[in-house]
């Protein structure tokens, strides 16, 4: 039998890890503040555009005749996409529901049904929100390209770079998703063609699996960057700061 994982590694010295409540507290603060900021946008802001820069919270602007608050029109899908994300689920169950707060920390709640009943059973619909998220992503890429077009001419401003970084991070988050990993190849049982060569699905699955290892990191960074992008554009809109134009 193969060597055990532990015996392959040099003995891990005692790590002075952070107290167990640090991670769930961070989750509650970060998601809580992000939620409040989003609500503020939904109810008190009607647009997020500064010339060719469009805030990701307000894209797409086209609503095809559907009448809702602009931010709601855009936000329901990324919100449900993130709320049903396997990574955020872990953070939410730990941070907000203390189910469990941290490993081997006793729980107070008596009744537990996991993801077997509504509303948590609906997390099984994650793949559907992924499909919608990909559509939204297409719009965000269009916005990012438009951020490089100033009055019909190519140009680069700090805002253009921020919007490009934003959409790259969102793509990394979206395409490192567990449901996508399953869809692209994880669901298949055989990875080898009749001629002994790897299947295309295998190659794709392998690539996505590597990205998937960092899915949690992409989840946080992309969330904070969306936030930052909106703040940047909003500050431009209100004339608090001026965009830096490189050329």
């Amino acid at each position, binding site marked *: 039998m193969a060597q055990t994982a532990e015996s392959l590694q040099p003995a891990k010295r005692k790590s002075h890890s952070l107290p167990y409540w640090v991670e769930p507290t961070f989750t509650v603060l970060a998601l809580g503040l992000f939620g409040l900021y989003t609500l503020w946008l939904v109810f008190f802001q009607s647009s997020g555009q500064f010339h060719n820069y469009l805030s990701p919270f307000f894209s797409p602007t086209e609503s095809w005749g559907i009448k809702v608050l602009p931010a709601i029109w855009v936000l329901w899908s990324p919100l449900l996409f993130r709320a049903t994300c*396997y990574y955020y689920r872990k953070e939410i169950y730990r941070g907000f529901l203390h189910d469990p707060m941290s490993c081997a920390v006793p729980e107070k709640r008596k009744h537990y049904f996991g993801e077997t009943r509504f509303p948590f*059973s609906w997390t099984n619909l994650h793949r559907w929100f992924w499909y919608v998220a990909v559509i939204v992503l297409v719009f965000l890429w269009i916005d990012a390209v438009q951020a490089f077009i100033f009055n019909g001419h190519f140009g680069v401003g700090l805002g253009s770079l921020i919007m490009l970084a934003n959409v790259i991070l969102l793509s990394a988050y979206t395409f490192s998703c567990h449901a996508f990993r399953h869809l692209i190849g994880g669901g298949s049982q055989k990875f080898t063609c009749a001629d002994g060569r790897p299947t295309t699905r295998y190659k794709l699955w392998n690539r996505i699996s590597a990205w998937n290892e960092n899915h949690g990191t992409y989840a946080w960074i992309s969330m904070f960057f969306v936030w930052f992008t909106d703040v940047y554009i909003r500050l431009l809109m209100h004339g608090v700061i001026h965009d830096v134009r490189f050329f």
Partner: protein
Amino acid sequence: MPEDITLSVFRGDKGGGDEVEYKVPMQTGMVVLDALHFIQAHDAPDLAVRWNCKAAHCGSCSAEINGSLKLLCKTRVDDYVGEVIHVRPMHTFPVIKDLVTDVSWNYDMLRQVPAFQPAIKAPFTLQQRDVDRIQEFRNCIECFLCQNVCHVLRDHSAQDRYWGPRLMIRFAELEMHPLDTGDRMELLKGAAGIGMCNITKCCTVVCPQGINITDNGIIPLKERVADVYWDPLGGLVRKMHK
């Protein structure tokens, strides 16, 4: 003179018990299991501890050391210099005596998972890349630390509704086998209760074999269950492919 370390070891049985303190002279490279053997040899010959390999291979010596779930034979005492080392039996399983717990429930459940159903008769040749995925799961040494930490079993005692992470990777190992023809989805969603897992990943954290239980086992299984029960469109596409 070697330095003395203090161990506070649970002594008792299913009726209850308490921790008892012992002093043990520390030696270089000593693990907690060595210290317990010293106690057995010098202070308490009736101290019960289950072990076999002393090499993190047999999965017998699982216990709770200062609140962390570990193998006694792979936990060095010099990680705890200046501290009392509290050693307790696994919380989730009934204590038989001292550090020995009754883990037979896990084996009972394992027997209920329908075995490998190969498409062709053995012997057969498999490509390494087709079995890489399941070999990770076959590294399991059945220490049941993951079962012990899983809050569904540990805090909610829902053994009647969820079979636990070790069983989930047993399902994964069979379902992802390139030649398996079995269909365990109904069982997985029903009696085995995969929906009870809320992917909070403590099983992955404690696994001494470094098996990615949640990301590579449970989540892909949840997706397979979703294929069947939450995705009529995908089901149709798969039917047409067949």
